């Protein structure tokens, strides 16, 4: 698999405080990578290191295969766009003027693509209105437009959806999906709004105390969080035969427990099992959300 970003044992210390404590992660090309963690666990610090705003105390990261200790890392950042915490925009300028500034910084000679960029983020009708008078959602979208100015193929969005109203969240979500699907942009998005991340991310990284607790693809996570009915029975063999006959998907957990991934007709199943002298001892519906998964993961980690 090709990775846009890899980090290995990355550490960042502020005085005696370890913001990052040997973090290793891999962001696959073409993915929407959701970086999940509580406030203060090191998400923004990690992003600051990648963007060059701060330097790592120890460890390495590779951006498009270029190591952070190499001089070429500065140039490799030309391929990324980022919105770190708050959008970086001149408040006393219009959306168009803000983009013109960024075009100049990037050395893009023509402003001809600015209208398209403004349209892409839904700010084409803002005219001469100053960014100071924009709503938070509009500012966030302008921040994304600026991040997209250099046609990056890796977009880093830090806590972008925090503080947005539901409509704003939907707009940003659609924009991120559009950028990923239509423009093939890899996205690293950090947030603690798990429900929102679960809707868009293709990969997840769970971070706690400056360390990566687990990296998992959305596919694997869905399998783990799949809605199922957990049955505890007296005779596993009988149950397996019945479920196979009915064509249900299931997974045997132990000699008494089984997860069935289907909508069951409980009454007929219990009756049928009873006829074959198999008692149903317990039935439990399980529907683990990303939130539950995260809580179990982080909680479990803390208890270790």
């Amino acid at each position, binding site marked *: 698999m090709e990775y846009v970003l890899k980090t290995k044992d990355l550490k960042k210390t*502020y005085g005696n405080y370890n913001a990052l404590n040997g973090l290793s992660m891999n962001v696959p090309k073409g993915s929407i990578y959701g970086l999940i963690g509580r406030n203060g666990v090191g998400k923004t610090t990690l992003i*600051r290191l990648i*963007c*060059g*705003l*701060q*330097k790592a105390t120890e460890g390495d990261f590779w951006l498009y295969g270029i190591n952070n200790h190499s001089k070429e890392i*500065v*140039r*490799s*950042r*030309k391929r*990324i*766009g*980022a919105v*770190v*915490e*708050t*959008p*970086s*925009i*001149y*408040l*006393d*300028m219009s959306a168009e*003027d803000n983009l*013109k*500034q*960024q075009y*100049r*910084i*990037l*050395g893009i000679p023509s402003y001809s693509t600015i209208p398209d960029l403004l349209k892409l983020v839904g700010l084409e009708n803002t005219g001469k209105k100053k960014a100071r008078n924009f709503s938070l959602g509009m500012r966030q979208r302008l921040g994304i437009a*600026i*991040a997209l100015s*250099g046609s990056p193929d890796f977009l880093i969005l830090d806590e972008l959806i925090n503080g947005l109203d539901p409509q704003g969240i939907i707009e940003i979500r659609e924009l991120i999906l559009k950028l990923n699907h239509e423009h093939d942009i890899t996205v690293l998005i950090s947030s603690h709004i798990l429900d929102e991340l679960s809707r868009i991310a293709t990969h997840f990284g769970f971070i706690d105390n400056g360390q990566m607790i687990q990296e998992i693809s959305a596919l694997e996570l869905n399998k783990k969080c799949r809605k199922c009915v957990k049955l505890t029975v007296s005779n596993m063999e009988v149950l397996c035969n019945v479920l196979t006959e009915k064509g249900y998907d299931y997974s045997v957990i132990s000699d008494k427990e089984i997860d069935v991934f289907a909508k069951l007709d409980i009454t007929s199943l219990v009756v049928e099992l009873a006829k074959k002298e198999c008692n149903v001892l317990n039935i439990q519906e399980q529907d683990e959300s990303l939130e539950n998964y995260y809580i179990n993961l982080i909680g479990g980690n803390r208890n270790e």
Partner: protein
Amino acid sequence: MNNLLSAYFQRLLKSRLYWCLLGLMILSGIIIPILAHREMITYGTDYTLESRLVWHFLIIGFIVAVFCSWFLGTDYSDGTIRNKIIAGNSRLKIYISALLICVIASVILVVAHQITIIGLGTWLIAPFKTDIHTISLIIGITILATITFAGINTMIVMINQNKASSSIICLVVSLLMFGISFYVLSVLFSSDMAHSDSIVKQIYEFLNIFLPTGQLLNLINLQVTQATEMIIYNILILVISTGTGIMVFEQKNLK
């Protein structure tokens, strides 16, 4: 670095504060000779163009402090300095381009005032009575002091991430430098120092010429006897402040 400078110039041209400062400098360059001309006609006062030209030496430090702290501080307050780094510019390039824009913009403010007052003053007051070499030297050192002020203020703003505190520090530093220079000058002119040859007097004399504010106060009296020292000290301060600024900015954790 050309891209960064180009972006800074674009912002400068759209900056209301800069146009206001430029307007203020040009307007004062118009008003001063007109008022002098009126007094000369009404009361018969004997003014020279030199005495009217040096007036702005007192405010250069403050004008540069206001401009630099506001213009560069906005990059921190609006977070736009991040765009410059993420766009793949090294911190050295960012610092140097910030310094250059402050230097150019500040020099334009000072030169605009000088051109206006010299042009109008020659007509309304009288041509310069001092020789052209001395006048050129005075103007040259004034511009060099302006560049030094820009260098000091750029350092303060670039190593401090807070626009409000940068503005206050820049103004306080300017005020402090002027205060020290006024004090030093008053001590040097006092009767105690007149015939002294002590090391204390040498220190005062050094401070009098070392600080750009002291240099400007000396230039008000059209004294250019230590022009070489003034030029060297300006360059020295500029190099030290820029070197320190770059070193700190390179290591700074930006938010």
